């Protein structure tokens, strides 16, 4: 089959023209974007003196307040960008400015907007700009029909910093419109140590998911005041297994010697190998030598992961634990390989092969 030369040339010209048009379009987009960026930066530079004036300790020779309040909306963008990077009186000053400029009241009105993106944006803005005000209105969005809005509300409550939000956030980890525990956990951590008393009380809460989350957070905080309540959770055989495990791990992080007894009890008496393993790991972290004998007994456990955790915990107990491990490693019992592996790890970064099915 032969193709007419004219047709080939025509097709080639069309393709070339198309490429030229596309290249021109890309160049135009770059040019416009560059101009927009330059314009935004210029506007920001022009408005920065207003931000400086607001934050200045000595406003006598500053800019009139009316100029600041009447400045274009770009000023709000600058302030909202700056807010997360500042704290103390600077942050409060900028929050007050946003309130005076009507940014906060507009966001409150937008919390009930029809479009989810507007509700999400409004609650995020309030979390940064409104401080501890409007917590109830923000918390109402934890039950929003949109998951994105619910997550935005949780993050905003964390940023707002009011410990009064703890109960709302914990309620949001259960139910039909439950939030991912990771999102709620990060928000609760953002609240900082002011939330600790409320978190301790929440260890006796209604839902297992929230009790487990609270136990984990108290462990992350390393809160010694939470140890007695966490020890009660580990002791309670009727408690959810996941909650007991999380409480045991938290006790290991807190590191109080008062926790040795309930952890030893969990290691010795529990029928849940995962709890036994967690208890052994926690005992290793606490480092109380009175756990040596129960941990040695754990080296004879049927579950290989429990034996390994006990061996590692003994290795962490110091000279006494090491001497016990050397004795076991020299013998011919089932725990000898685990004891030897734990000793090897003490002497260098040798990884014990993980048994099948052990996470």
């Amino acid at each position: 089959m032969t193709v007419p030369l004219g047709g080939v040339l025509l097709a080639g010209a069309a393709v070339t023209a198309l490429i030229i048009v596309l290249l021109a379009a890309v160049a135009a987009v770059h040019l416009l974007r560059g101009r927009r960026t330059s314009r935004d930066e210029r506007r920001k530079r022009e408005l920065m003196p207003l931000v400086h004036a607001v934050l200045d300790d000595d406003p006598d020779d500053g800019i009139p307040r009316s100029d600041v309040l009447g400045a274009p909306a770009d000023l709000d963008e600058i302030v909202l960008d700056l807010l997360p990077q500042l704290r103390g009186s600077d942050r409060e000053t900028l929050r007050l400015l946003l309130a005076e400029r009507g940014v906060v009241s507009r966001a409150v009105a937008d919390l009930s907007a029809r479009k989810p993106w507007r509700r999400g944006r409004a609650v995020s803005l309030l979390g940064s700009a409104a401080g501890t005000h409007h917590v109830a209105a923000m918390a109402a969005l934890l039950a929003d029909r949109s998951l994105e809005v619910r997550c935005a509300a949780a993050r905003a409550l964390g940023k707002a910093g009011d410990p009064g939000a703890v109960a709302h956030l914990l309620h949001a980890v259960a139910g039909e419109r439950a939030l991912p525990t990771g999102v709620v956990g990060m928000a609760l951590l953002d609240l900082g140590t002011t939330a600790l008393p409320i978190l301790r009380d929440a260890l006796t809460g209604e839902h297992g998911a929230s009790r487990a989350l609270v136990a984990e957070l108290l462990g992350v905080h390393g809160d010694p005041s939470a140890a007695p309540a966490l020890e009660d959770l580990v002791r309670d055989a009727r408690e959810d297994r996941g909650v007991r495990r999380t409480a045991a791990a938290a006790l290991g992080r807190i590191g109080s010697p008062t926790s040795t007894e309930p952890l030893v009890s969990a290691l010795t008496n529990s029928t849940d190998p995962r709890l036994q393993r967690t208890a052994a790991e926690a005992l290793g972290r606490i480092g109380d030598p009175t756990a040596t004998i129960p941990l040695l007994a754990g080296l004879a456990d049927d579950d290989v992961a429990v034996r390994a955790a006990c061996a590692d915990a003994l290795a962490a107990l110091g000279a006494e634990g090491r001497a016990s491990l050397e004795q076991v490693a020299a013998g011919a019992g089932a725990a000898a390989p685990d004891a030897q592996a734990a000793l090897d790890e003490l002497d260098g970064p040798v990884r014990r092969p993980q048994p099948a099915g052990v996470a």
Partner: protein
Amino acid sequence: MSHVLVVDDDPVIADLVAFRLGRLGLEVSVESDGEAGLAAARQLRPDLVVLDWMMPRMNGLEVCAALRSDADPALARTPVLLLTAKAQEPDLERGFAAGATDFVTKPFSTRELISRVTAALPPGSVSA
């Protein structure tokens, strides 16, 4: 007049810090990346460097270490204040190991920054 070099790739933060330090009667220069910051430090011989950690080209730790190993003993002794969001224990260790004199962690307070700058400069450098 004492001279402070501010090195931060965020122009809003750099402007704010420069403004607040300028109000103290200090001479302030600003650079927006580590490489330019190091070059400016070698040229201007500032009395103090306020340095962001995470920056393009050269990060704050690299700049700090380069200053400390500079052939000029006066420049090698220049106080360096790290202004950074990295506030974990290992970060502080790394910062001090690189030669930082002090830390201000983000989110930060300009009042705290001013106090630390004042403490790092020779007495009388800062007007009340």
